[in-house]
């Protein structure tokens, strides 16, 4: 009986909105393949959306000097405008997949390659948001070349390396902080990891009591 009631209630809630959606179906223009191709250019962390193309460290070096160096410096370790691109990682980090310098206290500037868990993200960001003064101007091959050069500046690939859509995911396995992230926390307001989402289902990690008298403000409990 309870089950039947529950389903009825669900129908009552859902039916009007489905009907409304049909009613407003004429609003908005159908998006063409071309529309979607032009605007849907993001690359997901799992490399979905990666464009076809390739670029070498050598061609990346030239592009970097022309389009990136004024802000990011010749070695990528400089703090000129924003935080550095490379630096702060070790060969042992590359083996472990976790950057040791993140053990507190964190000293010095934190570079892009120190944090970056997936190469898809770097390719995506360069393609859609760089260079700063002319974003979305780079061709796919140029994006691969620049990414390859940054990896080279970070000592992750040699100077004869070429990056492409074919080897991007494999190359990402060299990133020094690829295993340095967790989603096991209480700040994801969506489906929890135990049912296929992320996070612990909003369970707080800090749970103070509401003390009213003679409290100890210095106590961690």
């Amino acid at each position, binding site marked *: 009986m309870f089950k039947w009631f529950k389903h009825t209630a669900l129908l009552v809630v859902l039916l009007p*909105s*489905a009907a*409304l*959606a049909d009613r*407003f*179906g004429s*609003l*908005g*223009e*159908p*998006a063409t393949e071309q*529309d*979607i191709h032009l*605007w*849907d250019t*993001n690359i*997901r*962390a*799992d490399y*979905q959306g990666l464009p076809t193309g390739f670029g070498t460290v050598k061609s990346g070096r030239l592009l970097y000097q022309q389009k990136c160096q004024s802000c990011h410096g010749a070695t990528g370790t400089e703090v000129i405008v*924003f935080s550095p691109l490379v630096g702060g990682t070790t060969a042992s980090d590359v083996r472990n997949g*976790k*950057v*040791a310098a*993140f*053990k*507190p206290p*964190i000293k010095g500037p934190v570079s892009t390659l120190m*944090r*970056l868990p997936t190469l*898809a*993200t770097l390719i*995506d*960001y360069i393609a859609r*948001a760089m260079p700063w003064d002319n*974003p979305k101007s780079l061709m796919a091959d140029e994006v691969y070349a620049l990414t390859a050069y940054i990896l080279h500046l970070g000592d992750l690939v040699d100077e004869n390396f070429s990056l492409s859509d074919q080897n991007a995911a494999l190359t990402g396995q060299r990133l020094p902080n690829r295993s*340095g*992230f*967790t989603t096991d926390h209480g*700040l*994801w*307001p*969506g*489906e929890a990891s135990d049912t*296929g989402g992320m*996070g612990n289902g909003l369970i707080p990690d800090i*749970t*103070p*009591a*509401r*003390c*009213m*008298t*003679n*409290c*100890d*403000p*210095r*106590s*961690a409990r």
Partner: protein
Amino acid sequence: MHITIERAPEHHLTAETVKQTAVSRRQLMGMTVLSTLSAGLSSIGHAQSLTIPSWTTSPGFPVAKTPYGQPSRFQIGFERKTLPGLSPVPENSASFSPLQGLLGIITPSGVHYERHHSGWPDIDPREHRLLISGVDQSFVSKPKVFSVEDLQRLPSVSRIHFIECSGNTGSERLRATAPTVQYTHGLLSCSEFTGVPLRLLLESCGADLNRAKYVLAEGADAASLTRTIPMELVLNDEVLVAYGQNGEYLRPENGFPLRLIVPGVQGVSWVKWLRRIEVGDEPYGTRDETLHYIDPMPDGMHQQYTSLQEVKSVITSPSGGQRLHGTGYTKITGLAWSGRGKIQYVDVSTDGGRNWKQARITGEILSKSLTRFEFDWDFAGSEAILQSRAVDDSRHVQPTYAQYRAVRGSESVYHNNAIQSWGVDAKGQVTNVQVV
């Protein structure tokens, strides 16, 4: 006997004071606290005896003198402020909302805080479009392009919500640094937003809401800022595609013509200048989910996709930089909020957190909205440490710094919701302090 409250010195952070200190932000602000508090502005005077003022003996100005009305010229210092040294690039920076002057819970749109990642675009709404599609056709069977006008024809809802940058109060993670509440807590605002539930648009596009787990929201700014949004908040109709804010169109700095509203979630996910929604089954790991807006923890790991803004409160008056003149009754007032829902209680302590009493709520208590509280206090001319502590309707209690740091450490500039302390000395000078 009565008390007057002297306003905090404004524009007290200059390029010169920044140069005098180290480049690092925490040192910068720590130095400034000590050096600038003696500089003050006089408070509003008290009439000695009644007079018949000139505005009572002659007509005033005509109607519509200012077609878009302006605040009184006597309302001064109620402005967004930037923090010198925060960012070398003003297009990728933040401005802070003047919480110390805010009355009630609604932030006037002109002083809403700002955080832009590549400047704010001045968009002609006739040329703006919103594309809704899927990772592939199986997620959205009828991808569509909406104009702003299309969206305004659809049924709308209006809701009051707070928005807080996850970096709000990040300057205080190690020690008390910023001089005023505008800088400690001013990456916080609250507005009435008007728009269309995103779920309605997704249904209209034939989205497979059973398979969809996430949506990607993308802005039309140069940074193409993108964030992963949980489908649950879309399905329960909390996520809106808004065009209205506080009774008018969104301000350009706040996303005109379209902004995603994600109640309870940090500001970066409220994507401004919204131009694209993609429906999918995996999180996106965008730049602002991997290189920024991630939380380093004591074990050296980073927490990713931390999105919720947890229960928090702050006393806005008396607050840092202000000065109490005289002794006797004064009102303590402030703001409380929680990304989990409604505020249940706010407690106030005047002895640095040893003893607490429940404060009064002065208005409506709305879910995921700012809530105003007040507390009656007699300043005796002796030292005091003022604190507020909020409890939300999930019974989650705002932590002390000791409780906060014991779990999360001090490295993350994000999601600091620890209890703020304002020290009051015997002369009534209020400064930013921490009880540790």
